[in-house]
């Protein structure tokens, strides 16, 4: 008789570690990561390149053996019960690594064979998934002829062939055009509504804001922030004012801005300050800079965003992130 008790978490990491190299060349890529992801949750895992996101995902998906700590997925240990983990997870990898010589349909059939699905279901499953990701017309074409967006969608379909309970999506929308990205977001939401737990790694803060219920930010192999996006934004508190001035005036402007709150990481060519007194301080900032003979070339006020959370946690902003 099925029950609805929740003794285990779909994804759990306790002090997860991964070290590469030996001796003086040893690098700690992941240094004691703790994660508890709840059933039916979309969890965002953020971090800059090289922060340890993919390494963590590779450990949790059994591709890489941890050098320390514990990883459990779908209630199974990622080292001792790796095959049980594999049976329960779907993974769409960062590079949409798909054999370009095969057709989408052939790859889905192969995937069905490797997951031990009954032969009688292969054709139906493949057809359903191709339709679901909008690739029915391209199903019999070689993957080498697919666009980047089509490959991503096929990659997602491949990861769903066995109806996994836990889905890992490693930067699934990187390099996609806005329409393809939104279409993939809709599919992720639909899967989540069907009960699939999703761990999503991304560099797009907007994506995390749109899709996830909770996020963790990893930097240099360590989780530096964890929580609901709204809570984390609230923790940042004050809005950020971005000011552009002439290059020669950067130094005096920085000194003056520091009087209005803490200086924050900002896009290149601008200065950022968290306004302690809120938006009402903007007029004072302009007046102070004007009195000092500094011409303001541009000025933008931003309410706290995930980018601010990210910047506060890591000390820098992601390239291309919405300020």
């Amino acid at each position, binding site marked *: *008789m*099925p*029950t*609805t*008790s*929740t*003794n*285990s978490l*779909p994804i759990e990491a306790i002090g997860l570690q991964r070290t*590469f190299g030996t001796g003086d060349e040893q690098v700690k890529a992941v240094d004691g990561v703790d994660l508890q992801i709840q*059933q039916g949750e979309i969890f965002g895992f953020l971090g800059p390149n090289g922060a340890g996101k993919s390494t963590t995902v590779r450990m949790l*998906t*059994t*591709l*890489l*053996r941890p050098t320390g700590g514990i990883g459990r997925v*779908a*209630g199974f240990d990622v080292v001792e019960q790796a*095959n*049980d983990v*594999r*049976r*329960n*997870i779907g*993974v769409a*990898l960062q*590079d949409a*690594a*798909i*054999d370009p*010589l*095969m057709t989408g349909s*052939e790859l889905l*059939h*192969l*995937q069905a*064979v*490797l*997951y*031990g*699905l009954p032969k009688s279901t292969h054709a139906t499953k493949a057809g359903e998934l191709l339709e679901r990701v909008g690739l029915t017309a391209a199903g019999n074409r*070689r993957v080498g002829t697919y666009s980047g967006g089509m490959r991503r969608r096929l990659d997602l379909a*491949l990861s769903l062939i*066995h*109806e*996994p*309970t836990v889905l890992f999506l490693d930067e699934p929308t990187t390099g996609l055009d806005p329409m393809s990205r939104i279409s993939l977001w809709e599919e992720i939401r639909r899967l989540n509504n069907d*009960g699939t737990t999703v761990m999503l790694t991304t560099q797009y803060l907007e994506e995390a804001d749109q899709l996830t219920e909770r996020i963790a930010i990893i930097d240099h192999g360590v989780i530096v922030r964890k929580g609901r996006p709204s809570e984390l934004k609230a923790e940042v508190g004050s809005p950020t004012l971005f000011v552009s001035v002439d290059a020669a005036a950067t130094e005096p402007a920085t000194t003056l801005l520091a009087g209005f709150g803490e200086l924050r990481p900002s896009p290149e060519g601008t200065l950022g300050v968290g306004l302690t007194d809120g938006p009402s301080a903007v007029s004072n900032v302009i007046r102070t800079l004007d009195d000092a003979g500094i011409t303001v070339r541009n000025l933008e006020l931003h309410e706290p965003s995930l980018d601010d959370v990210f910047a506060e946690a890591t000390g820098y902003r992601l390239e291309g992130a919405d300020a």
Partner: protein
Amino acid sequence: MTIVDETTGLPERSVANTRTFPASVGLMKRSMVNIVRLPSAFVPSLVMPIFQTIAFAGTFFAITQIPGFPTDRSINWFLPLGVIMGSGFAGIGIGFATIRDLEGGFYDRLRLTPAPRASLIVGPLLSALVRSFIVTTVVFAVGSLFGARLTHGPSGLIPLYLAGLGIASIGTGWGLGLAYRFRDMRAAAIMQLTFFLLIFLTEAQTPLSVMEGWLEHVARINPFNQVIGLARLGFLDQPMTWNETWTGLLALVVIVALTMVFARRGLDKLSDE
């Protein structure tokens, strides 16, 4: 409603255990499809041994004048070598293909499936055996057109095919093992160099009786010499008995076992990166 596992409280797993054989056959089919769609990856391993058999037999036709040479047809001496080379290419080609999959990331997708790890080796191995069978058949057919004859009738094909399939298995194990360890094209050079060096440091071209110095010593202890001897059994003017056969079979079994263990351990190492 989602069905929940009573023990874990999580949704029940939807997939049964995958069996080794169907998964291996699935991977073999994929490899065969790739041969058809990327002929350039297979054709050289078919053309080279044909060319080599004909060219060597023509160039070194006088080799049969060596006193005690075991056949009066030079093509009978070189055809089995062509089969060995072609089958070696077939096996090593699997190593190349695996490097491509590792570099491209597709191998991660295979490793993410619950297919038994053995199937990741057996599947490519089956593909190499099919390739070896094709190469052996084609080389024999072309060699026959150029005058090769089975001196003991069709039964002489059995050791030829066994040697070819065995060498393809060795090439596969060696190729996969190196591919897993290096994970890039560095492995390709090592695969080819070591494999073909070992084959040529045998009676591949000339009999032991005309070799001298270190070459003779190496050829005498090189187990591949027994394998080449096995492949030639049906083409020489000497008895084809069990006594002539078992050493070649033993060499094959031992080397195949060693290279398969080498491949399996390499596969495990992939998780250690």
